[in-house]
Protein backbone atom coordinates (compact mmCIF):
# COMPACT_ATOMS: atom_id res chain seq x y z
CA UNK A 1 0.00 0.00 0.00
CA UNK A 2 1.03 3.57 -0.53
CA UNK A 3 2.68 5.54 2.23
CA UNK A 4 2.64 9.29 2.89
CA UNK A 5 6.30 10.09 3.52
CA UNK A 6 6.10 13.87 3.87
CA UNK A 7 3.92 16.94 4.14
CA UNK A 8 5.11 20.26 2.81
CA UNK A 9 3.49 23.66 3.07
CA UNK A 10 4.91 26.46 0.96
CA UNK A 11 3.97 29.83 -0.49
CA UNK A 12 3.21 30.34 -4.14
CA UNK A 13 3.43 33.70 -5.92
CA UNK A 14 4.25 35.22 -9.30
CA UNK A 15 7.12 36.99 -7.52
CA UNK A 16 8.80 33.62 -6.83
CA UNK A 17 8.51 32.72 -10.52
CA UNK A 18 9.76 36.13 -11.64
CA UNK A 19 12.76 36.01 -9.29
CA UNK A 20 13.58 32.49 -10.50
CA UNK A 21 13.17 33.26 -14.20
CA UNK A 22 15.03 36.56 -13.81
CA UNK A 23 17.96 34.69 -12.20
CA UNK A 24 17.65 36.68 -8.99
CA UNK A 25 17.79 33.68 -6.64
CA UNK A 26 21.25 34.77 -5.43
CA UNK A 27 20.29 38.45 -5.13
CA UNK A 28 20.45 39.61 -1.49
CA UNK A 29 16.73 40.19 -1.19
CA UNK A 30 15.73 36.81 -2.61
CA UNK A 31 18.57 34.54 -1.46
CA UNK A 32 17.06 33.85 1.99
CA UNK A 33 13.88 32.49 0.41
CA UNK A 34 15.60 30.43 -2.27
CA UNK A 35 18.12 29.04 0.25
CA UNK A 36 15.14 27.87 2.28
CA UNK A 37 13.59 26.28 -0.80
CA UNK A 38 16.97 24.56 -1.46
CA UNK A 39 16.86 22.98 1.98
CA UNK A 40 13.28 21.90 1.44
CA UNK A 41 14.13 20.38 -1.94
CA UNK A 42 17.10 18.41 -0.56
CA UNK A 43 14.92 17.01 2.21
CA UNK A 44 11.95 16.26 -0.04
CA UNK A 45 13.94 14.46 -2.72
CA UNK A 46 15.93 12.52 -0.07
CA UNK A 47 12.64 10.87 0.85
CA UNK A 48 12.43 9.51 -2.72
CA UNK A 49 8.77 10.28 -3.34
CA UNK A 50 7.01 8.59 -6.26
CA UNK A 51 4.32 11.27 -6.47
CA UNK A 52 3.64 14.81 -5.23
CA UNK A 53 -0.01 15.44 -4.44
CA UNK A 54 -0.19 19.24 -4.79
CA UNK A 55 -3.16 20.93 -3.12
CA UNK A 56 -3.28 24.45 -4.55
CA UNK A 57 -5.56 27.06 -5.98
CA UNK A 58 -5.86 28.05 -9.61
CA UNK A 59 -5.80 31.77 -10.48
CA UNK A 60 -8.38 31.72 -13.28
CA UNK A 61 -5.91 30.04 -15.63
CA UNK A 62 -7.38 26.52 -15.78
CA UNK A 63 -10.91 26.91 -14.45
CA UNK A 64 -13.47 29.42 -15.66
CA UNK A 65 -16.77 30.91 -14.67
CA UNK A 66 -18.90 28.61 -16.82
CA UNK A 67 -18.43 26.10 -13.98
CA UNK A 68 -16.09 27.00 -11.15
CA UNK A 69 -15.39 23.90 -9.05
CA UNK A 70 -15.08 23.94 -5.26
CA UNK A 71 -12.54 21.10 -5.50
CA UNK A 72 -11.01 19.55 -8.61
CA UNK A 73 -8.38 16.91 -9.35
CA UNK A 74 -6.20 16.50 -12.44
CA UNK A 75 -5.99 12.93 -13.69
CA UNK A 76 -4.10 13.61 -16.93
CA UNK A 77 -0.83 12.12 -18.17
CA UNK A 78 0.74 15.56 -18.13
CA UNK A 79 -0.04 19.20 -17.43
CA UNK A 80 0.83 22.04 -19.77
CA UNK A 81 2.32 25.30 -18.57
CA UNK A 82 -0.30 28.07 -18.26
CA UNK A 83 0.00 31.37 -20.10
CA UNK A 84 -0.84 33.82 -17.31
CA UNK A 85 -0.40 36.77 -19.65
CA UNK A 86 3.40 36.80 -19.77
CA UNK A 87 3.59 33.82 -22.22
CA UNK A 88 4.13 30.36 -20.72
CA UNK A 89 7.26 29.83 -18.65
CA UNK A 90 9.91 27.82 -20.48
CA UNK A 91 9.33 24.44 -18.90
CA UNK A 92 8.29 21.12 -20.39
CA UNK A 93 4.85 19.84 -19.37
CA UNK A 94 4.72 18.47 -15.82
CA UNK A 95 4.17 14.70 -15.67
CA UNK A 96 0.99 13.49 -13.99
CA UNK A 97 0.19 10.26 -12.16
CA UNK A 98 -3.12 9.08 -13.64
CA UNK A 99 -3.26 5.86 -11.61
CA UNK A 100 -2.95 7.59 -8.25
CA UNK A 101 -5.09 10.53 -9.34
CA UNK A 102 -7.93 8.32 -10.57
CA UNK A 103 -7.77 6.29 -7.37
CA UNK A 104 -7.99 9.44 -5.24
CA UNK A 105 -10.90 10.74 -7.35
CA UNK A 106 -12.80 7.44 -7.03
CA UNK A 107 -12.23 7.24 -3.28
CA UNK A 108 -13.24 10.85 -2.68
CA UNK A 109 -16.49 10.49 -4.61
CA UNK A 110 -17.23 7.17 -2.89
CA UNK A 111 -16.74 8.87 0.48
CA UNK A 112 -18.82 11.99 0.12
CA UNK A 113 -16.45 14.44 -1.59
CA UNK A 114 -17.95 15.07 -5.03
CA UNK A 115 -14.79 16.42 -6.58
CA UNK A 116 -14.67 17.66 -10.18
CA UNK A 117 -12.29 15.73 -12.43
CA UNK A 118 -10.07 17.49 -14.96
CA UNK A 119 -9.04 15.23 -17.80
CA UNK A 120 -7.17 18.08 -19.43
CA UNK A 121 -5.43 20.76 -17.42
CA UNK A 122 -2.86 23.51 -17.36
CA UNK A 123 -1.07 24.40 -14.15
CA UNK A 124 -0.28 27.98 -13.15
CA UNK A 125 1.89 29.63 -10.51
CA UNK A 126 -0.19 27.97 -7.80
CA UNK A 127 1.99 24.93 -8.51
CA UNK A 128 4.62 26.23 -10.91
CA UNK A 129 6.13 28.95 -8.72
CA UNK A 130 7.42 26.53 -6.07
CA UNK A 131 7.79 23.38 -8.20
CA UNK A 132 11.07 24.31 -9.96
CA UNK A 133 12.65 24.99 -6.55
CA UNK A 134 11.43 21.81 -4.87
CA UNK A 135 11.79 19.40 -7.80
CA UNK A 136 13.93 21.15 -10.39
CA UNK A 137 13.90 18.44 -13.04
CA UNK A 138 10.29 17.27 -12.83
CA UNK A 139 11.69 14.05 -11.40
CA UNK A 140 8.46 13.26 -9.58
CA UNK A 141 4.99 13.19 -11.18
CA UNK A 142 2.30 15.36 -9.61
CA UNK A 143 -1.39 15.05 -8.81
CA UNK A 144 -2.91 18.55 -8.76
CA UNK A 145 -5.88 19.10 -6.45
CA UNK A 146 -7.50 22.50 -6.73
CA UNK A 147 -9.42 24.38 -4.04
CA UNK A 148 -11.71 27.35 -4.68
CA UNK A 149 -10.52 30.29 -2.60
CA UNK A 150 -11.54 32.95 -5.12
CA UNK A 151 -15.24 33.02 -6.05
CA UNK A 152 -18.09 32.87 -3.53
CA UNK A 153 -19.44 30.62 -2.27
CA UNK A 154 -16.19 28.99 -1.15
CA UNK A 155 -15.63 25.94 1.03
CA UNK A 156 -14.94 26.69 4.68
CA UNK A 157 -11.59 25.98 6.32
CA UNK A 158 -13.28 23.14 8.27
CA UNK A 159 -14.49 21.62 5.00
CA UNK A 160 -11.00 21.91 3.49
CA UNK A 161 -9.68 20.06 6.54
CA UNK A 162 -12.26 17.27 6.03
CA UNK A 163 -11.43 16.98 2.35
CA UNK A 164 -7.73 16.90 3.20
CA UNK A 165 -8.32 14.04 5.60
CA UNK A 166 -10.19 12.17 2.85
CA UNK A 167 -7.33 12.83 0.42
CA UNK A 168 -4.92 11.30 2.96
CA UNK A 169 -7.11 8.24 3.42
CA UNK A 170 -7.42 7.84 -0.35
CA UNK A 171 -3.64 8.00 -0.82
CA UNK A 172 -3.06 5.40 1.93
CA UNK A 173 -5.56 3.03 0.29
CA UNK A 174 -3.75 3.15 -3.08
CA UNK A 175 -2.86 -0.48 -3.73
CA UNK A 176 0.74 0.02 -4.80
CA UNK A 177 4.04 0.51 -3.08
CA UNK A 178 4.21 4.23 -3.63
CA UNK A 179 5.87 6.89 -1.53
CA UNK A 180 3.73 10.02 -1.66
CA UNK A 181 4.42 13.56 -0.50
CA UNK A 182 1.49 15.90 0.08
CA UNK A 183 2.08 19.57 -0.63
CA UNK A 184 -0.18 22.49 0.22
CA UNK A 185 0.69 25.76 -1.50
CA UNK A 186 -0.35 29.37 -0.89
CA UNK A 187 -0.21 32.13 1.71
CA UNK A 188 0.79 33.27 4.09
CA UNK A 189 -0.32 36.89 4.66
CA UNK A 190 -0.94 39.08 1.63
CA UNK A 191 -3.44 41.68 0.43
CA UNK A 192 -3.62 42.44 -3.28
CA UNK A 193 -6.51 44.90 -3.52
CA UNK A 194 -7.68 48.12 -1.89
CA UNK A 195 -6.06 50.75 0.30
CA UNK A 196 -4.13 48.13 2.29
CA UNK A 197 -2.57 46.60 -0.81
CA UNK A 198 0.81 45.15 0.12
CA UNK A 199 0.22 44.81 3.84
CA UNK A 200 1.67 41.70 5.44
CA UNK A 201 0.99 40.40 8.94
CA UNK A 202 4.08 38.69 10.36
CA UNK A 203 2.70 38.22 13.88
CA UNK A 204 -0.30 36.33 12.58
CA UNK A 205 1.84 34.37 10.13
CA UNK A 206 4.05 33.16 13.00
CA UNK A 207 0.94 32.24 14.98
CA UNK A 208 -0.45 30.35 11.99
CA UNK A 209 2.85 28.46 11.66
CA UNK A 210 2.64 27.58 15.36
CA UNK A 211 -0.96 26.41 15.05
CA UNK A 212 -0.41 24.30 11.94
CA UNK A 213 2.55 22.69 13.70
CA UNK A 214 1.26 22.16 17.22
CA UNK A 215 -2.53 22.18 17.19
CA UNK A 216 -3.71 22.18 13.59
CA UNK A 217 -7.23 21.02 14.41
CA UNK A 218 -7.82 24.37 16.13
CA UNK A 219 -7.60 25.99 12.70
CA UNK A 220 -10.95 24.38 11.89
CA UNK A 221 -12.55 26.97 14.17
CA UNK A 222 -11.43 29.82 11.93
CA UNK A 223 -13.62 31.14 9.12
CA UNK A 224 -12.41 32.47 5.80
CA UNK A 225 -13.35 35.91 7.10
CA UNK A 226 -11.14 35.33 10.14
CA UNK A 227 -8.18 34.46 7.93
CA UNK A 228 -8.89 37.49 5.69
CA UNK A 229 -9.01 39.80 8.71
CA UNK A 230 -5.84 38.34 10.26
CA UNK A 231 -3.69 37.88 7.15
CA UNK A 232 -5.34 39.80 4.32
CA UNK A 233 -8.00 38.84 1.81
CA UNK A 234 -5.66 36.72 -0.28
CA UNK A 235 -4.14 34.83 2.64
CA UNK A 236 -7.16 32.51 2.67
CA UNK A 237 -5.05 30.18 0.53
CA UNK A 238 -3.82 28.76 3.83
CA UNK A 239 -6.80 26.40 3.67
CA UNK A 240 -4.57 24.40 1.29
CA UNK A 241 -1.98 24.06 4.06
CA UNK A 242 -4.79 22.85 6.33
CA UNK A 243 -5.84 20.22 3.78
CA UNK A 244 -2.22 19.04 3.55
CA UNK A 245 -1.92 18.89 7.35
CA UNK A 246 -5.16 16.91 7.60
CA UNK A 247 -3.97 14.48 4.90
CA UNK A 248 -0.75 13.47 6.67
CA UNK A 249 -0.44 11.53 9.93
CA UNK A 250 -1.85 13.58 12.82
CA UNK A 251 1.28 12.93 14.91
CA UNK A 252 3.60 14.19 12.19
CA UNK A 253 6.44 16.31 13.48
CA UNK A 254 7.89 19.48 12.04
CA UNK A 255 11.23 18.93 10.32
CA UNK A 256 11.84 22.62 9.53
CA UNK A 257 10.01 25.95 9.43
CA UNK A 258 11.18 28.86 7.32
CA UNK A 259 9.52 32.25 7.22
CA UNK A 260 10.56 35.28 5.22
CA UNK A 261 8.29 38.33 5.35
CA UNK A 262 9.28 40.44 2.38
CA UNK A 263 7.55 42.96 0.14
CA UNK A 264 4.01 41.76 -0.64
CA UNK A 265 4.09 38.34 1.08
CA UNK A 266 4.76 36.46 4.22
CA UNK A 267 6.67 33.68 2.46
CA UNK A 268 6.81 30.42 4.38
CA UNK A 269 7.93 26.82 3.96
CA UNK A 270 7.26 24.05 6.45
CA UNK A 271 8.14 20.35 6.30
CA UNK A 272 6.43 17.55 8.23
CA UNK A 273 7.48 13.92 8.64
CA UNK A 274 5.17 11.15 9.85
CA UNK A 275 6.07 9.22 13.03
CA UNK A 276 7.34 6.11 11.21
CA UNK A 277 9.91 8.17 9.42
CA UNK A 278 11.10 9.84 12.60
CA UNK A 279 11.85 6.42 14.09
CA UNK A 280 13.69 5.25 10.97
Amino acid at each position, binding site marked *: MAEIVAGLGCSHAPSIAHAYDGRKTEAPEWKPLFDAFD*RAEQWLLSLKPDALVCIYNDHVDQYWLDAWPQFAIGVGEQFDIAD*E*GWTPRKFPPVPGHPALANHIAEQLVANGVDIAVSYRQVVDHGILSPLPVIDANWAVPIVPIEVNVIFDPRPSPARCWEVGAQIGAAIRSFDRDARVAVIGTGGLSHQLTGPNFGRICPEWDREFLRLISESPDRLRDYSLDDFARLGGDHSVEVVQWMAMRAAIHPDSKVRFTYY*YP*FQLMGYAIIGFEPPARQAA
Partner: protein
Amino acid sequence: MKGLWLNQALNDLRHPECRAAFLADRDAYLDRYPLTDAQKQLIRDGDYGGIIAAGASVYTLTKLGATTDVSLLEMGAQMRGQSLDEFTAFLREQNQQAAPFALLPDGDTGDNDG
Protein backbone atom coordinates in the same frame (compact mmCIF):
# COMPACT_ATOMS: atom_id res chain seq x y z
CA MET B 1 -22.34 37.79 -11.54
CA LYS B 2 -21.21 41.38 -11.28
CA GLY B 3 -18.33 41.90 -13.67
CA LEU B 4 -18.74 38.64 -15.60
CA TRP B 5 -17.89 40.19 -18.97
CA LEU B 6 -15.25 42.42 -17.43
CA ASN B 7 -13.55 39.30 -16.14
CA GLN B 8 -13.99 37.63 -19.54
CA ALA B 9 -12.42 40.56 -21.42
CA LEU B 10 -9.49 40.68 -18.99
CA ASN B 11 -8.93 36.96 -18.73
CA ASP B 12 -8.96 36.37 -22.48
CA LEU B 13 -5.67 38.28 -22.43
CA ARG B 14 -4.14 34.91 -21.53
CA HIS B 15 -4.27 34.24 -25.26
CA PRO B 16 -1.46 35.81 -27.32
CA GLU B 17 -3.84 36.71 -30.15
CA CYS B 18 -6.04 38.63 -27.70
CA ARG B 19 -3.04 40.47 -26.27
CA ALA B 20 -1.99 41.42 -29.80
CA ALA B 21 -5.53 42.58 -30.64
CA PHE B 22 -5.74 44.62 -27.41
CA LEU B 23 -2.41 46.32 -28.03
CA ALA B 24 -3.18 46.97 -31.71
CA ASP B 25 -6.65 48.50 -31.16
CA ARG B 26 -7.83 48.59 -27.58
CA ASP B 27 -11.27 49.99 -28.30
CA ALA B 28 -11.99 47.41 -30.99
CA TYR B 29 -10.91 44.65 -28.57
CA LEU B 30 -13.21 46.00 -25.83
CA ASP B 31 -16.09 46.25 -28.33
CA ARG B 32 -15.99 42.47 -28.69
CA TYR B 33 -17.53 42.18 -25.21
CA PRO B 34 -20.88 43.39 -23.84
CA LEU B 35 -19.20 45.85 -21.48
CA THR B 36 -20.77 49.07 -20.26
CA ASP B 37 -19.18 52.32 -21.36
CA ALA B 38 -18.12 52.87 -17.76
CA GLN B 39 -16.36 49.49 -17.66
CA LYS B 40 -14.55 50.22 -20.92
CA GLN B 41 -13.46 53.59 -19.55
CA LEU B 42 -12.00 52.00 -16.42
CA ILE B 43 -9.80 49.81 -18.62
CA ARG B 44 -8.83 52.72 -20.90
CA ASP B 45 -7.94 54.78 -17.82
CA GLY B 46 -6.03 51.94 -16.18
CA ASP B 47 -8.17 52.52 -13.06
CA TYR B 48 -7.22 49.31 -11.27
CA GLY B 49 -9.16 49.94 -8.08
CA GLY B 50 -12.18 50.83 -10.19
CA ILE B 51 -11.83 47.63 -12.21
CA ILE B 52 -11.82 45.60 -8.99
CA ALA B 53 -14.79 47.59 -7.63
CA ALA B 54 -16.68 46.83 -10.86
CA GLY B 55 -16.41 43.12 -10.12
CA ALA B 56 -13.11 41.93 -11.57
CA SER B 57 -10.96 39.42 -9.73
CA VAL B 58 -7.41 40.53 -9.03
CA TYR B 59 -6.39 37.33 -10.83
CA THR B 60 -8.02 38.45 -14.07
CA LEU B 61 -6.73 41.99 -13.55
CA THR B 62 -3.14 40.66 -13.50
CA LYS B 63 -3.59 39.56 -17.13
CA LEU B 64 -4.18 43.21 -18.07
CA GLY B 65 -0.99 44.20 -16.24
CA ALA B 66 0.93 41.44 -18.02
CA THR B 67 -0.37 42.73 -21.37
CA THR B 68 0.29 46.43 -20.78
CA ASP B 69 3.51 45.87 -18.80
CA VAL B 70 2.18 47.40 -15.61
CA SER B 71 3.60 45.65 -12.55
CA LEU B 72 1.61 44.47 -9.56
CA LEU B 73 3.54 47.05 -7.50
CA GLU B 74 2.39 49.84 -9.81
CA MET B 75 -1.21 48.64 -9.63
CA GLY B 76 -0.92 48.40 -5.87
CA ALA B 77 0.48 51.89 -5.49
CA GLN B 78 -2.47 53.26 -7.44
CA MET B 79 -4.98 51.30 -5.32
CA ARG B 80 -3.34 52.76 -2.21
CA GLY B 81 -3.49 56.28 -3.66
CA GLN B 82 0.30 56.56 -3.57
CA SER B 83 3.09 57.10 -6.05
CA LEU B 84 5.30 54.09 -6.76
CA ASP B 85 8.09 55.75 -4.76
CA GLU B 86 5.79 56.25 -1.77
CA PHE B 87 4.63 52.65 -1.93
CA THR B 88 8.20 51.39 -2.26
CA ALA B 89 9.14 53.41 0.81
CA PHE B 90 6.23 51.85 2.70
CA LEU B 91 7.38 48.37 1.71
CA ARG B 92 10.97 49.11 2.76
CA GLU B 93 9.79 50.17 6.19
CA GLN B 94 7.45 47.19 6.43
CA ASN B 95 10.34 44.85 5.52
CA GLN B 96 12.40 46.29 8.35
CA GLN B 97 9.60 45.97 10.88
CA ALA B 98 8.88 42.40 9.78
CA ALA B 99 12.50 41.19 9.64
CA PRO B 100 12.65 40.13 13.34
CA PHE B 101 9.87 37.62 12.63
CA ALA B 102 11.90 35.78 9.97
CA LEU B 103 12.92 32.14 10.43
CA LEU B 104 15.69 31.24 8.01
CA PRO B 105 18.32 28.56 7.36
CA ASP B 106 21.67 29.06 9.10
CA GLY B 107 23.71 31.78 7.52
CA ASP B 108 20.80 33.82 6.21
CA THR B 109 19.88 36.85 8.19
CA GLY B 110 16.93 38.16 6.25
CA ASP B 111 18.56 41.52 6.86
CA ASN B 112 17.87 43.45 3.71
CA ASP B 113 16.54 46.82 2.86
CA GLY B 114 14.41 45.58 0.04
